[in-house]
């Protein structure tokens, strides 16, 4: 098989992971742990599929996924930021909630052929550039967005004032507060926008990758995304690199299956999870960090009275 094909397949597989992981990165940088990624992706996947079924436009579906992901994130923000529920428990509850809600709402859409899917771009001359042509320019816009997003996010964090504030939100929210910057409001904003990204990641599965609606379409990708944030040590480009690495594992797995290697597919399907375990072990070993090396205030609800 050609290397070009493998790389192109890797980028496609990495796209849902990249959106979800970068969404989680933004949220964790703001100091909130959202373990509900899997649930949020499922909401996005079902909303995207139904949106496209109703309107006949895949992009309307993506918009629906964005909005529903944001709404789901808004509910999570209310519970963890305002009501100050334990973030881990709330995240697990939202995983279950997302699974239940998406199955409930999507029950009538299982196995229904999609009315619209996201198509690959045709950029004319660019598509004929060797290697880059098929690997990058021949992809659909969401894949290109997944490549662009970490670059933009990285620039945002490093070179803008708001980016600096975002990092401070996760490290020392009390300092941010003392500067008169609204901590609670910003945390809401980041949880909601990060969740919207997760929604898009889910919609990529139901509108481009599969493309149709099946229960539990994410199959653990939300959790892998969380692991990727740790793997990428909360840096956008590293997280994206990790996502591509996983995409590569996925592409190889798929390829091996097609070529009828004498390996049972069940074992191949274990690869992403085993790879995550390996990555977690390597990261934990190579860095003697305290709380996973994450933002210092990660997981703690901000309470002004206890500043």
């Amino acid at each position, binding site marked *: 098989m050609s290397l070009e094909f493998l790389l192109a397949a890797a980028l496609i597989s990495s796209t849902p992971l990249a959106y979800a992981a970068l969404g989680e990165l933004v949220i964790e940088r703001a100091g909130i742990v959202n373990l509900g990624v899997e649930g949020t992706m499922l909401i996005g996947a079902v909303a995207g599929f139904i949106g496209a079924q109703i309107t006949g436009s895949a992009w309307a579906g993506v918009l629906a996924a964005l909005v529903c992901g944001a709404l789901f994130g808004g509910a999570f923000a209310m519970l963890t930021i305002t009501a100050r529920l334990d973030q*881990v*428990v709330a995240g697990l509850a939202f995983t279950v*909630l997302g699974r*239940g809600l998406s199955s409930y709402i999507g029950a009538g859409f299982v196995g229904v052929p999609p009315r619209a899917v996201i198509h690959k771009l045709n950029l004319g001359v660019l598509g004929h550039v060797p290697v880059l042509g098929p690997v990058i320019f021949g992809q659909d816009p969401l894949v290109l967005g997944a490549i662009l997003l970490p670059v933009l996010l990285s620039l945002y964090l490093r070179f803008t004032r708001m980016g600096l504030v975002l990092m401070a939100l996760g490290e020392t929210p009390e300092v941010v507060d003392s500067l008169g910057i609204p901590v609670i409001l910003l945390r809401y904003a980041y949880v909601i926008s990060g969740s919207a990204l997760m929604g898009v990641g889910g919609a990529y599965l139901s509108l481009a990758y599969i493309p149709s609606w099946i229960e539990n379409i994410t199959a653990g990708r939300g959790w892998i995304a969380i692991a990727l944030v740790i793997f990428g040590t909360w840096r956008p480009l590293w997280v994206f690199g990790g996502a591509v690495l996983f995409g590569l594992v996925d592409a190889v797995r798929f390829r091996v299956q097609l070529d009828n290697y004498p390996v*049972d597919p069940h074992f191949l399907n*274990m690869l992403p999870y085993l790879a*995550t*375990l390996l990555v*977690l072990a390597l990261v934990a070993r190579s860095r003697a960090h305290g709380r996973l090396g994450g933002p210092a205030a990660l997981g703690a609800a901000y309470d002004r009275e206890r500043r």
Partner: protein
Amino acid sequence: MTTPSRAESALRVVIGTIATFVIGALLLVLTGHNPVFAFAAMFRGAFGSIVAFASTVDKAVPIGLCAIGISLAYRGGLWNIGAEGQFYFGAFAAAGFGLSLPENVPHALGIAGVVACGLAGGAAWAAIAAAAKVWLRVNEVLSTLMLNYVAILWVDYLVSGPWADPVTFSFPYSPELPDAARLPAPIAGIDLGAVITLLAAAALYAVDRGMRWGYELRVAGDAPRAAAYGGIRASAVTASALVAAGALAGLAGAIEVAGTTGRLQSGLSPGYGFIGILVAWLARSSPLGIIAGSVVYAGLLNGGFSLQVSGVPSAIGTVLQAVLLVCILTTFSLGRYRLRFGAAVGEAP
């Protein structure tokens, strides 16, 4: 946060439950279903007859055992998100033992072996995460979770390949376990699992009240530095709790295989390990609360299944499970805020 009184706690649970039904009813109305009819059908499907009740208890057993383990591990500050995988691995070990039994083995031996293998299988699966936690400092939330997927795929592989039943080969089932390895179900189809679960809950109570290990576990969980100062080997204690939690989940898997299904099969658990997490949190570490919570959550699960006949998607049960936890936790969390009437600014308290 001050601990609320019993009456106040009860009131909050009631408010949370009402809120859950309101939200569930809203969802049902919005999707064109009659909530009164749906809730009534769910209740009938869960508790409406002896058969329904027995089937709910059958589901409450694995949920309860998983929740007891999760609650135990959490006393040591560890999140066991891997009960689902430990359940499958325990089921695998128990089924392996049962399927390889020679003929004419005494029933007692068969049951003892199945239970022991379930415990050992679940413990072994959790031990991987425990070892990674102690030696490599790998976050147990993610490691136990990833191991879930591996264990489920492993069982899927077995029942569709080497252990596939030659008779029902189109279904991913193993052959049936021999009678010697099956749990007796003396009362109305409720098997020995219910008794085992009650014993496990009693054991959790004993760990809390009378065991040095339980004390060390809580100190290691709440104040690891104080534990180290007091000569407690915190990592060893918490790791042992995670392994014990795995053993309980594995036991649940063994009971499922030896009692409910009678065979190893794909999709053995409809998410018992995850529901166990919700129940463990709802119960706030109380063994009695875990028992009550598992019956309620098993009821929601069972009620959801029975709804399918009437055209309402069974996932409504899953939705209600999550919403119930969130609502009750919220009523407790918001209990910190108090409305005070008549107290003007600057007035002496």
